[in-house]
């Protein structure tokens, strides 16, 4: 009885899963090629990966990646700003063809979008907190209000692991304002992003005092149905090349991001065996 019920309910709602089971249709690839343009979802509020410069253009490390991907396919690029909380839906619904939007590669996310291997970057979780408080360990967050941003996977982790009371705002601007207003003792976010905030000179009274946790690789994503088809394989190869030939390290330097061992390790691992 249970099985019958589950099945009948599922059949009503499982249109998405049927699509994934189908053979390669390469719809996205064909669409991109025929219209000569690839639509890429990127961040517009995540310096220096994707943000707006003074004249309002989208720039950043991931924007460079998007452009390089379109170049490799010989098509134009159109950039669409996405949010953490809607980026997967943009891809799922075909509003974008490719997503390069600082997304951590999580098991549950792989069921929704086609996260391409190898991963191209990584970041850990850390907090920005006032020097005056002198936090030293994650446990210091227990039962204290900590500001965060809706959509970050580690909100759940710091809540469950350290008992922090996460107050999640819709945007980074609100979360950081709340920290400045002393409404919370810390702002939990990606260590790489906090690092670039701290080096901006606007946060001199603040520090990143803890050791980063949950280092989590980032993945770019294609629609789930395309993952093991032409488009997914193409992006896979491209990611591999960027890691192998050090292109990502160059972009990292270009955008003034603190060098990560992740990229160096990957370059070493994928080293051409004939190169001595």
């Amino acid at each position, binding site marked *: 009885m249970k099985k019958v019920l589950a099945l009948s309910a599922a059949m009503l709602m499982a249109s998405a899963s049927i699509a994934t089971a189908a053979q390669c249709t390469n719809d996205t690839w064909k669409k991109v090629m025929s219209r000569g343009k690839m639509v890429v979802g990127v961040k517009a509020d995540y310096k220096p990966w994707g943000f707006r410069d003074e004249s309002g253009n989208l720039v950043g490390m991931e924007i460079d990646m998007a452009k390089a991907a379109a170049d490799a396919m010989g098509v134009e690029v159109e950039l669409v700003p996405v949010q953490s909380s809607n980026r997967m839906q943009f891809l799922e619904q075909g509003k974008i063809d490719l997503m390069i939007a600082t997304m951590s590669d999580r098991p549950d996310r792989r069921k929704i979008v086609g996260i391409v291997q190898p991963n191209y970057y990584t970041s850990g979780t850390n907090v920005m907190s006032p020097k005056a408080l002198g936090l030293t360990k994650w446990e210091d967050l227990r039962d204290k209000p900590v500001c965060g941003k809706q959509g970050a996977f580690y*909100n759940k982790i710091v809540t469950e692991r350290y008992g922090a009371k996460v107050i999640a705002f819709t945007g980074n601007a609100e979360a950081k304002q709340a920290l400045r207003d002393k409404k919370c003792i810390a702002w939990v976010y990606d260590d790489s992003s906090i690092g670039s905030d701290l080096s901006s000179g606007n946060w001199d009274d603040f520090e990143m005092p803890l050791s980063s946790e949950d280092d989590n690789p980032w993945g770019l994503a294609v629609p789930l149905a395309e993952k093991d088809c032409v488009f997914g394989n193409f992006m896979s190869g491209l990611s591999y090349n960027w890691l192998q030939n050090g292109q990502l390290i160059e972009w990292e330097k270009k955008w003034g991001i603190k060098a990560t061992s992740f990229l160096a390790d990957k370059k070493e691992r994928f080293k051409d065996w004939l190169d001595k």
Partner: protein
Amino acid sequence: MIEFIRQFFLDLYEVAPRWNFIFFHDPTQWERVVEGFWVTLQLSVACVIFSVLIGIVGAWAQGSPNRILRSVVQGYIQFFRNTPPFVQLLFFYFALGQFTPTYSPDGWLEVPIISNVGWAIISLSFFAGAFNVEIFRSGIEAVPGSTREAAEALGFSRLQTYIYIVFPLAFRVSLPALNNNLVNLVKTTTQALAIAVPELLYQFVGIWNDYPSAMYPSLTMVFVIYIGLVGILVFSMHRWEKAMRIPGYGQ
């Protein structure tokens, strides 16, 4: 029975990964839903009560012979009715929040006396209250001048006339419009999300961010819960409307 529900939604998740009703099979997520529901309920009840009180007092002050009092009410209505509640919430919490007294448990934190839930109640009550003033004004204007004069002739003061004669009659006329506005108010509580009030939508956004596969089920649940909440409100308001009808009056 509960185990049956749990298993059913687990099975559903197996066959349809996009329909992960996680809050029906994960106790932690269920707690988040329940918590969010309570906050929404508290917000709704508090805001409905305060906004109606504001409406009653405001409509009375609007008819006052004192010009200053009248213009204060008018200014209040213009300010709150003509600006978006979303902006009001942000403004109250971030800007005004700076000026309210705070206490500091650890030397750094400045915990305001008024929490974000408090600000949401204040802000939303004032917002809906501005509409309620106008709603009650329409009701008061529907009370015939002769009725008021008759009350005066009996020696009632202005306040007494308002409390015993004008308002009870006006209230009946205002109820349908008030009903509308309160329905709107209950729905507007979702905007408290902007200042991180852990109400229903906040919790569901949190759930579908933690579990992307739970997005459609979460949105479905949000719809169902609000239809239920608003349904209860509308039902009881209609009952009240019926109970208050005066046979022969206004027919």
